[in-house]
C-alpha cells in the first residue's frame, strides 16, 4: 500500500439480500477473509441483485476492493467521525425543504 497509490484487488464474496416482511437486509461477506479498512471502496461485480418481495436471494459474486492509499486511510480515520450524526434516525434525508 503506497502513500498515494491505490491498489485494486478482487475477492470472491457471498451476497445475501432479504426482502421479506420479517427482515429487510443486505450483507456482503468476503469468502477469502479479505478485511475492509477505512477509506476502502467496495463494488460487487455483475448485474444488480434484487430479491423479489418475500424472498431471500444468496449469490456468489466477485467483488472489487479499491484499497485506499495510506494517506486516504489516515484522512478517513481523522475525518470519518464527523459524519457520525448519520447514525440518527432523523438525519438521513438530504432534502431540507420537502
Amino acid at each position, binding site marked *: 500500500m503506497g502513500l498515494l497509490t491505490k491498489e485494486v484487488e478482487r475477492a470472491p464474496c457471498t*451476497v*445475501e*439480500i*432479504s*426482502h*421479506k*416482511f*420479517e*427482515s*429487510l*437486509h*443486505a*450483507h*456482503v*461477506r468476503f469468502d477469502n477473509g479479505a*478485511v*475492509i*479498512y*477505512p*477509506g*476502502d*471502496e*467496495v*463494488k*460487487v*461485480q*455483475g*448485474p*444488480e*441483485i*434484487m*430479491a*423479489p*418481495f*418475500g*424472498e*431471500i436471494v444468496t449469490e456468489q459474486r466477485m467483488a472489487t476492493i*479499491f484499497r485506499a492509499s495510506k494517506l486516504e486511510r489516515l484522512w*478517513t*480515520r481523522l475525518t*470519518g*467521525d464527523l*459524519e*457520525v*450524526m*448519520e*447514525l*440518527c*434516525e*432523523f*438525519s*438521513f*434525508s438530504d*432534502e*431540507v*425543504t*420537502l
Partner: protein
Amino acid sequence: MNMHTADAVTAEESIAIQERQAAFDSKAATAVAMQDTLLTPRFYTTDFDELDAIDVSSVREDWDKLIAQMVSDPNKGHFKKNEDWDHVDWDGMDPTLRKEFIDFLISSCTAEFSGCVLYKEMKRRGSNKDITQLFQLMARDEARHAGFINDALREAGVAVNLGFLTQKKKYTYFRPKFIYYATYLSEKIGYARYITIFRHLEAHPEHRFHPIFKWFQEWCNDEFSHGEAFALLMKTDPKLTSGGNVWWIKFFLTAVYSTMHVRDHQRPAFHAALGVDTDWYGHEVFTKTSELSKQIFPITLDIEHPRWARGLKRLQAANADIAEAKERGGLSGWLGKTWGSARAAAAFVSLYTIPSVPNRVPESPRLEPAY
C-alpha cells in the same frame, strides 16, 4: 410449512429462519409499477480490536439479564399486520403530507437498515462472545423494523431498491466511543420520539392518519433495550463517561438534539397532521431523553436556558438559507452557503456553550421503559 421468525424459540433460531427461509410471494410486488427508491445506507468500519477487548464482567448481572430478555424476543410476534392495520387512503391523502410522510418512512427505513449493516459488521468482525451476541440480536431487530416499514412503503406504492451493493461504496470510519455515544443517544431519543407520538395519539386518535403509529409502543421498546445495552457497554469503562470525554458527551447531546430540531421542522405538514406542535414535541422528547440519559451521562443539557430555544431557531433558519443558496447556485449561491454555514456554526457554538447541568450517575444504569 414455512416457519415465521415469530415462531422461533431462540434468537439464533429466529435468525437461522430468516436466513434459510424463502417463501414466494412476489406476485403482488411485480403487479404494480412502483416508484423506485434506492436505499443508500452508509458503510462503516471501526476499531474492531478495541470493541473485541470489552470486558462486561463488571456489569455481568445486568448484562446477562438484558441479553436474556433480548434472546427471549418479547416482540417477535409484534411486527405483523393484523386487524388493527386499517386501510390507508393514500390517494386521498394531502400531497404535501404524503410526501413528508413517505420521506419519514424512507429515512426511518434507511436508518434501521444502516443500523443493521453496522451491527452485523461488528458481529462478524468480533470474536468476543458477549459482544457478538449483542450485535447479532440488535441486527435482528433493526432488520425486522426495516422490513415492517418497507411493507408500509410498498402499500404506498414505493419500492425500496437494494441495488446499492453493485455500486461502488466507500467505507468510512468511526471511533468506537463515538459509536457508543451516537448510537446510545440515537436509540434513546428514538424511543422518546416514538413513545411521545404513541401517547399523543392514544389521547387524540383522530390524528392517527396511518396505522403504523399503533405499532410504535413495542417498536420503541426495542430501541430502549438497545440503548440499555450501550449504557452497559459504556459502564464497563469509566473513562468513557469522565474527564475530557464529558465534552464529547456534551457535543453529542447538542448535535443530536439540534439535528432532530432542524429535521423535524422540515416536515411541517407531517406534524400538523399528527396534531403536534413541533417545538412542543422537540421539548418533550429532549426532556425524556435527558431524564433517561442520566443513567450513564454525568451531565444533561440545560434545555430550559433562554439561549437554548433561540439557538435552535437560529440554526434552523441558517440551515434553510443554506439549502436555498445551494439551490440558487453560482457565486451568490456560494456566498449564501458560506454565510449560512458561518451562522449555523455560530448558533451551534452558542448552544454548546450553555452551561450543562451536572448529574450523579447511579451505581447500576439499568432502566425499564416507563413513559
